[in-house]
């Protein structure tokens, strides 16, 4: 064992690979511990409740490091009856007629405009709908009426999508409201920096009307990984994709290697019709169109990751490796120590597991490690074909979403590059270790 480590140390790529594997594995453990499986699934479903604070298709915050003009981050503020931080409450309620104005002041000193400003309101009332007015007071003192209307029990008002306002301002409302008066109609509008006051006046016509408000501003950057077309935080899929990718790769690689080894050993030991049968199955299987059959299974039956994993293992077991192992086993079968074992009365299964299979381990281990990235990428490939498990957040799914939503065309490179980099790191880590192991265990060429 010590010699083995000494050998490994001779290959710097193996060391780097091992470090990378350790990193990926700790990322997977971190993901599983910090985000429980159910939470990950729920937030990846992309319901309004879990995504309403996120902007749509924006790059991560750290990309600002490479920008001269920084993109703004979003913010939000929940305003209850009593008000909230940064909120001045003016209560003019008189005998049953509720009339409260919330003046939410926020500082806006940025190089660029917000993606959207959204007012979420929930109201409790019996018959008469409450009414609200929205006024924005700019740092230069201009007061502009933005919107007024009645409040449904659950209300969402998005300033960016307000057509009437756009018509009134003549430009995109986010620019119209936040640009300096001089530049608002130019090609390069500039932000009017300063403290804005968003004045929300709520009027209720019943005794116990309750209105809660949340102001959500969507920026143009979000979180450590950005967001996708459904406003989901990409970091969830990046994090949870790690354990899924590792699980798929490891289970498939170990499953295939061990089953292949057992079949090859058993077939060679018993010989005769069993051996012939295994040989014929292998020949047929090697000619089967692997991916189309997986596509067929995925479309006709189920896209569950377990079914796909099972099919992958089944289709990969009878591969060229069986032929290679068989050739070695045929030599091993002739060895004298096998004969000795037979003489002292060892059972068939004992000979196969104790005397034959260990002989092939040096060949098996590099192949096993090298096949892990193949299966990790296979999972991503299937997702790209639209055969990913519909509920799971995976790297391949991210790439597929990004690709089919035109991320490459629209310049949202972060969306594709982030999962791709994780795939590369994982693939490389195992491949580097695998190639080094190949040279350690099969030293035939080192002597030259």
């Amino acid at each position: 064992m010590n010699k083995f480590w000494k050998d490994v140390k001779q290959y710097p790529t193996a060391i780097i690979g091992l470090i990378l594997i350790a990193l990926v594995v700790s990322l997977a453990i971190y993901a599983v511990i910090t985000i429980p499986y159910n939470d990950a699934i729920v937030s990846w479903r992309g319901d309004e409740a879990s995504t309403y604070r996120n902007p749509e298709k924006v790059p991560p915050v750290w990309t600002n490091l490479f920008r001269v003009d920084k993109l703004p981050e979003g913010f939000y503020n929940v305003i209850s009856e009593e008000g909230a931080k940064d909120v001045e409450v003016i209560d003019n309620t008189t005998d049953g007629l509720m009339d409260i104005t919330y003046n939410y002041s926020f500082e806006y000193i940025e190089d660029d405009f917000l993606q959207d400003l959204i007012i979420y309101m929930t109201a409790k009332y019996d018959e008469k709908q409450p009414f609200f007015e929205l006024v924005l007071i700019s740092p230069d003192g201009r007061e502009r009426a933005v919107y007024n209307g009645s409040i449904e029990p659950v209300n969402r008002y998005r300033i960016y999508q307000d057509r009437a306002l756009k018509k009134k301002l003549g430009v995109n409302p986010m620019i119209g409201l936040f640009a300096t008066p001089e530049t608002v109609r130019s090609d390069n509008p500039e932000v009017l920096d300063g403290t804005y006051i968003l004045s929300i006046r709520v009027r209720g016509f019943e005794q116990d009307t309750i209105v809660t408000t949340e102001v959500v501003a969507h920026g143009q950057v979000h979180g450590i990984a950005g967001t996708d077309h459904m406003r989901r935080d990409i970091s969830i899929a990046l994090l949870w994709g790690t354990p899924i990718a590792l699980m798929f790769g490891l289970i498939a690689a170990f499953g295939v290697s061990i089953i292949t080894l057992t079949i090859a050993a058993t077939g060679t030991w018993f010989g005769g019709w069993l051996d012939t049968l295994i040989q014929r199955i292998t020949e047929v299987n090697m000619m089967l169109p692997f991916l189309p059959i997986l596509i067929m299974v995925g479309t006709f039956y189920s896209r569950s990751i377990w079914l796909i994993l099972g099919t992958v293992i089944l289709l990969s077991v009878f591969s060229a490796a069986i032929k290679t192992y068989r050739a070695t086993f045929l030599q091993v079968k002739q060895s004298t120590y096998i004969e000795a074992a037979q003489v002292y009365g060892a059972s068939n299964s004992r000979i196969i597991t104790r005397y034959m299979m260990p002989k092939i381990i040096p060949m098996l281990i590099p192949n096993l490690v090298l096949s892990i990235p193949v299966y990790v990428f296979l999972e991503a490939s299937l997702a790209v074909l639209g055969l990913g498990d519909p509920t799971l957040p995976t790297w391949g799914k991210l790439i597929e979403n990004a690709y089919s939503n035109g991320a490459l065309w629209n310049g949202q490179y972060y969306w594709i590059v982030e999962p791709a980099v994780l795939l590369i790191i994982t693939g490389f880590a195992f491949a580097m270790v695998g190639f080094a192991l190949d040279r350690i265990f099969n030293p035939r060429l080192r002597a030259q």
Partner: protein
Amino acid sequence: MTDKINKTNKMSPDSKRTLKRILKYSAIRLVSLFLTVMVGIFLTIMIANMGGYVDELVKGQVNENLMMRVANDPTYKVMTPERRKTFFQDQLELEYERLGLNQPFMVRSFRFLWNAMRMNLGSAQQMTSDSGSKQVKLIITERLAPSLLLMGTANLTLFFLAITVALTLSRKYGSRVDKFFISLSPLSSMPSWFYGIFFILLFSAVLKILPFSGMIDSPPPRTTGGYILSVLRHLILPASSLIISASFASIYSWRTFFLIYSSEDYVEMAKAKGLPSKLIKRRYILRPTLPTIITSFSLMMITMWMGALLTEKIFGWPGLGSVIVAAVGSFDTAVIVGTTIIYGYLLAITVFVLDFVYALVDPRVKVGQGGN
């Protein structure tokens, strides 16, 4: 290789025997590959029909045909609605009986196998071919040419590129270039579509020098020359991503083959004789290694067909891969089964062609030792 061809042209009795052996070897391979494909297609049918998909397909076809026939029948038009219903049902039962749809599962599956092997899969549910037909056979066959163009270009380039690099590296074993290439071998763990995405990002999105996707500009150029140029421009990225993803692995393993063969005694002997290194390379190392390389190339091409499927999707290349992806999108069962079958055939043909090349280059086949 050249002197062998000369020999066969002259047709001496000796080379006639050689030719006979090659043909016999190829014929045996052809028959065994055909049987293999048959089993493969049968398995495909079984998998599809386990969920009753092939049954449904055939029944839908029968239903539609009968509906057409009955609707044109004047006696049918004067029947009462109830009578019509029973009449139709009876006819349908008869038709099922005639086509053997009431037979047991296994019998049915063999019947489907015969149809599937002839690509006789009826019409698609949603998709149409570019010429407007709904025939599955047409939808698939008209996409064959683009797929073959892409695979052909990629494979030929890859084969000669990898063989040259591998041979050169094996002569410079242990040098800095050699070490550099070997350290790049983990790059082959990434599939071709993955390179494709980065190529699109770099060459199409950022540098804007090559097209994003498709096979031809829209509208297509009028002149033949312009047409060919446009196709070539579109071919560069998908072909290079196929080549690059397979090249590092093949260079690595072929270099190993070359190293094994170049340590043989007869190479040392040739060196001792003072033969020029070019001659040693070609006659004493390349020749004996070729059969091994072709076997490995044959295995690699099977995986490459699968890689091409995804690469075609990423590049919007109008080949078989795009057909099957579109069929998955519209749940067109007949097209999915049909494409799976055609891929089976393509794999078999690929392997057969390489087997034939193998027979040409492997002296053991020619002199009749072993061979299979």
